[in-house]
């Protein structure tokens, strides 16, 4: 009898302390949740006050503009194909800005990613400073570089291309270096033993191992850059964004051209997303490359 009560008491104690702990944790979670909700609601109110038009006042009108645009587009739908042909060159420019900057950024990012990967870096003391440079490149929003370059070079696609490429270098440099860390060092050592230079070791030993991952990240970046390129056009850097701003500023009664541009942009983004995600899927999971054992 005495024995069993002795056992029960510690169990009871453990149970109590467990429940107390669980209660404390639940209370903590509840407090965090309340704080979070208060922040969200008060933040929303602040944003609402500092906005030119209020949320509740604007909510009923939210569909007015889309309705205008869609209405006009339907009313003059026979003109839409013509507009699409008219704005196709601008669209091409936007896509070209994205593609060229992704390519440039990926190439430079590739080189820098090898420079900042431990074990592969040719000059170890360069790792930290180059990483910081990449951090800064990643932190600068594209629009900052683009606006300054527009001031220096005038409008057009080149400022946008440089701005997006710089950001891409920062973003891909970091992702690529994470990929490089997973590369096996054996081929690199093998190449080193036969006297290959750093460039040859990287080109023949590392890049073939991780190229599919590089490509997958670069494609993802291309999707992001298409959007960025459209936005930069809107602030004056050419392409479809620039036309969109012009056509919208023409005002009511002329929204059919804006509708055509909306549609072009939407279709392009969706198409690029779909195609690129299909390729990425193939690169990451499927289709093992034809293997030949030697």
């Amino acid at each position: 009898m005495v024995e069993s009560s002795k056992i029960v008491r510690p169990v009871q104690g453990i149970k109590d302390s467990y429940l107390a702990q669980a209660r404390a944790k639940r209370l903590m979670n509840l407090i965090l949740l309340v704080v979070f909700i208060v922040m969200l609601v008060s933040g929303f109110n602040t944003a609402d006050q500092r906005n030119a038009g209020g949320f509740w006042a604007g909510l009923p009108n939210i569909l007015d503009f889309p309705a205008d645009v869609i209405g006009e587009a339907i009313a003059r739908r026979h003109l839409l194909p013509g507009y699409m042909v008219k704005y196709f060159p601008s669209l091409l420019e936007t896509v070209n800005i994205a593609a060229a900057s992704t390519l440039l950024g990926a190439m430079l990012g590739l080189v820098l990613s090898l420079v900042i990967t431990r074990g592969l870096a040719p000059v170890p003391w360069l790792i930290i400073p180059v990483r910081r440079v990449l951090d800064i490149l990643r932190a600068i929003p594209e629009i900052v570089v683009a606006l300054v370059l527009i001031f220096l070079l005038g409008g057009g696609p080149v400022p946008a291309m440089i701005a997006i490429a710089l950001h891409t270098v920062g973003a891909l440099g970091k992702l690529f270096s994470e990929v490089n860390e997973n590369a096996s060092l054996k081929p690199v050592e093998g190449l080193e033993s036969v006297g290959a230079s750093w460039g040859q070791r990287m080109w023949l030993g590392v890049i073939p191992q991780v190229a599919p991952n590089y490509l997958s990240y670069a494609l993802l970046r291309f999707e992001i850059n298409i959007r960025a390129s459209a936005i930069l056009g809107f602030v004056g850097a050419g392409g479809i964004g620039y036309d969109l701003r012009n056509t919208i500023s023409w005002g009511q009664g002329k929204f059919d051209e804006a509708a055509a541009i909306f549609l072009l942009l939407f279709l392009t983004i969706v198409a690029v997303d779909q195609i690129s995600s299909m390729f990425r899927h193939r690169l990451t999971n499927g289709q093992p490359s034809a293997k030949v054992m030697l």
Partner: protein
Amino acid sequence: MTATATVLHGPTVALFSRKKIISFSVPLIIIIYFVYIFVSFDIAGIGDRINVNNARTLVADAYSFKTHVTQDNRTGEFSVAIEGERKGEYLSGTAPGWVTLGDRPVVDLGKGHIITFGPNVSYDIPGYGTIVATPGKRGVNATFPPGELPNYISASKNRVTVNTDAGRLTITRNRTEVFKYTYGWELFFFTLDSPYHGLGVWQLVNRAANGEAAAIFHDVWTNRMWRHGDVAWAMYETLLMAFLGTFGAALVALPLGFLAAKNFTPLRSIRFASRRVFDFLRGVDGLIWTIVLSRAFGPGPLTGALAILMTDTGSFGKMFSEALENVDDKQVEGVTSTGAKPLQRYRFGVIPQITPVLISQVLYYLESNTRSATIIGAITGGGIGLMLTQAIGTQKDWEEVTYYIVLIIIMVMGMDTFSGWLRRKLIKGEDDGR
């Protein structure tokens, strides 16, 4: 043995030749593409389009400022103003140390360059001589030392400009103006009308200790040149846009994610519909959402926050539904076996499994949305993005542009660090807590 070798030989050669073709054709295609870009973007014409003067102003302005010393040649009125702006004007009777006030004010540009104002303006250039001008109705009437004019002086009947390393003097019939360049950012803490202008750090600390801290802070906060108060508000607005957009999207996307996940919504049509909604929200880019929403709500941070919310609801919905489809059923079955109701099954069987994924995704987006909020702010008119575009639009306040860029970089990097810290903290807490 030989048979295997022959069998392998053919495909191997084929593979090698294919690889050879690829390794040569990919660089070739890239080069051809860049040539096309070079032509279609007219990169060769950049040299003609680049505005060297703008570049020079920009770089010089980013680390130095100029003080204008101006005399109205008709009324004799004399003024000294930083950047020639009214809000940087020295009160009458005061001037920087290198200007001696009086009937004939004297400006000492340093290195022996002395300019004397008055009805006759004279500029003593060391190693060259003295230029004397008597601006009046009939022109500038300048006399120069004998010999040919050096190329840093341009003179005509109505205008004389002298551009030396020490500064720049412009004389026209109506105005005499001197620009002196100084390193640094002018009036960064106090404007000239503040009693604290020109005090040293220790004097300020002393005064602050004597109960003037609030007044000192007020003068910095309301500095009319740099508008520190407005800048702080703008940064807060930008962060607010990112915060509201990201977490609002996460809250909206979580229930929708269940609708799009195969193992939670058996009805194919609902799944299909919610997935198309996500695709639509993502496909209509943040730019278009910003335009559409600003028509209804006007410019401001709320519009930016909602634009981010719309786009990210699409992205999060897609990611959440994928995470939900990867949920391990065993944990849910275990919870069910204890007699849990459906809601409890979700709460204790599903949510703990997906929270680490959700939190890391959401926090990753929070950092990237800080950058987006800057960009969207520039379009929709809110936050630091708007102040930046305005400063760039004036085409002369490059020191402010530099300041904003530095602030933006610090803000984004800070957000990156913060979200990384929070992610580690929350996900680690999640692991040992449950």
